């Protein structure tokens, strides 16, 4: 039986572009961060700063939220490599619609993020214990990561359609990744002592909403602000996806470096 085109593309994305080393590094890096950074900072950061839990337990939901970037980066890079090695043209000359190719990338990103969520939760178990996730909380975690993953995938794919140099693409991607992570609440909370300007930047960052919501879901303290965060993420994900769809329509398929 023939799989639908989008699923065939997803299978191909995983089979062709995700070598074991890439997978280990993508999931290994945040896992090591939880273990090393979590352990070390737990010894020097007071639990009063992190809302009563250890720093490691504070970090785990942040790393779960971080998986939306991992997924986005994976599909952004997949797209870039497909473009660089002319597979975009080859796929577009075959029995696929451009929207299906884009859908395949986003679905790959989603699956990658969700697998990452599972791995981070398992790695974080010794620090967090079993999270007090209600069904609503679990749904919120999955939905948050899914929307965030669509947002970052859309953003990087849009970028990938406009740039013609690998150096430019990977430099911007690394810079964005660093910028987005460090200007979010993944590693530290926004407190009353946070400089106001910095706090404003933090709250302009979708990763902040994701990290805060997932933390609340883990702690069983979901509130209206989490739903608002989800709404903002949904809007951003829609905008990024539409931008990528528009960019696909007008994309120049010519050679790139």
């Amino acid at each position, binding site marked *: 039986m023939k799989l639908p085109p989008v699923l*065939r593309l997803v299978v191909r994305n995983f*089979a062709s572009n995700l070598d074991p080393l890439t997978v280990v590094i993508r999931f290994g890096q945040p896992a090591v961060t939880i273990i090393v950074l979590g352990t070390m900072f737990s010894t020097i950061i007071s639990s009063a700063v992190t809302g009563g839990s250890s720093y490691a337990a504070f970090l785990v939901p942040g790393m779960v939220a971080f998986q939306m970037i991992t997924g986005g980066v994976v599909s952004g890079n997949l797209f870039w490599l497909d473009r660089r090695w002319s597979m975009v*043209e080859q796929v577009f*000359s*075959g*029995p696929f*619609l451009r929207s299906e190719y884009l859908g395949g990338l986003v679905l790959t990103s989603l699956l990658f993020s969700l697998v990452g969520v599972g791995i981070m939760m398992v790695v974080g178990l010794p620090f967090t214990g079993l999270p007090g996730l209600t069904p609503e909380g679990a749904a919120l975690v999955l939905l948050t990561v899914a929307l965030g993953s669509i947002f970052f995938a859309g953003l990087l794919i849009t970028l990938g359609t406009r740039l013609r140099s690998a150096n430019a693409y990977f430099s911007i991607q690394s810079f964005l990744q660093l910028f987005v992570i460090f200007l979010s609440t993944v590693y530290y909370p926004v407190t009353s002592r946070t400089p106001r300007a910095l706090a404003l930047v933090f709250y302009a960052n979708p990763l902040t909403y994701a990290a805060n919501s997932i933390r609340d879901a883990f702690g069983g303290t979901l509130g209206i602000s989490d739903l608002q965060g989800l709404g903002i993420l949904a809007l951003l994900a829609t905008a990024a996806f539409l931008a990528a769809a528009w960019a696909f329509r007008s994309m120049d398929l010519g050679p790139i470096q």
Partner: protein
Amino acid sequence: MPSAELVLETNDLGYAYRPGQFAIRHLSVGLRKGEVLGLLGRNGAGKTTTVRLLTTLLPPTEGTATVLGHDLRTGGRALRQHLGVVLQSESLDFVSVERNLTLYAFLWGVPREVAKGRAEEMLELFELGHARQRKPWALSGGERRRFQVARELMHDMSILFLDEPTVGLDAIARRRILRYLKDRARSGLSIVFTTHILHEADMLCDRIAVLHLGRAIALDTSEGLKAKYGGAREVLAVFAAPLPAELRAQLAGELVERGATLLAPSEELESAATRVAFRSAEAESLLPWLSQWAHARHLEVDRMSVEAASLESAFLGMIGEADDGSAESSPVPGRVEGALAPGGGGRLT
């Protein structure tokens, strides 16, 4: 022999990068079932753009086209699922050669068992068996090109577009692939084939379209093009004994009167004195005249030969004519509307 059934037909098809700047214009061409259509032209003539247009990678900006009954503009997937496309740029997935073949077949929805069998067939046909576990980027240039063609043949299709598929291939591999393509065409596959290697087009193509500055300036069989545009050909006459100087001078004069251009003999050849070589557009008709001329002077001719008309000379003749035309029609030659050879866009089916 191609059937009469048209599988592809374009009418005044064109593509402009910007308003008024056409990469291809007034392309009206038909492709029959089982036919191999060659696209020849200089670099930048519009061959690749034509392939990209006909495979929906570029949207036409003017004209119409139908491919297998589907409108080129709206046919989309329904049209593309019957096409095979080997693009000029190399494309690959980051897996082994063999896995690339089966993965590509999977993308096309070819059942796993069929794909496995076909991969073996392609690996053998394209002499890639020894490299099946290697990554495509570790292959030599020729192997990579063979891999591109092999991968495309993993799925079924009605029309195959090949954009310079034999670049970098050795003579044996090239002949093998061309022979295979010819066989596939005999069994009903229609092929559009671009190349710069003219004898390849001569060998494979049923008809050849010559593109120049974005327009089709000729479309005919290889023989037809040679006959129309082949131009002057070289004639060599070898006499049994060296020609006396006065007779050589007399012959030279009479040949020049008949429009021939004498070719200088190679001084280093001892036999140069027995040879007369000239170039003429009327080469065939000059042979009996030369024979009579020798006979009347009791000269024995060992042999006379006329070089076969080549597609290359025909191609050069066509491009030369078109360039003359475009120089007359516009002071600024280029891809801009109005600067192209007049009459180049005539209907060609």
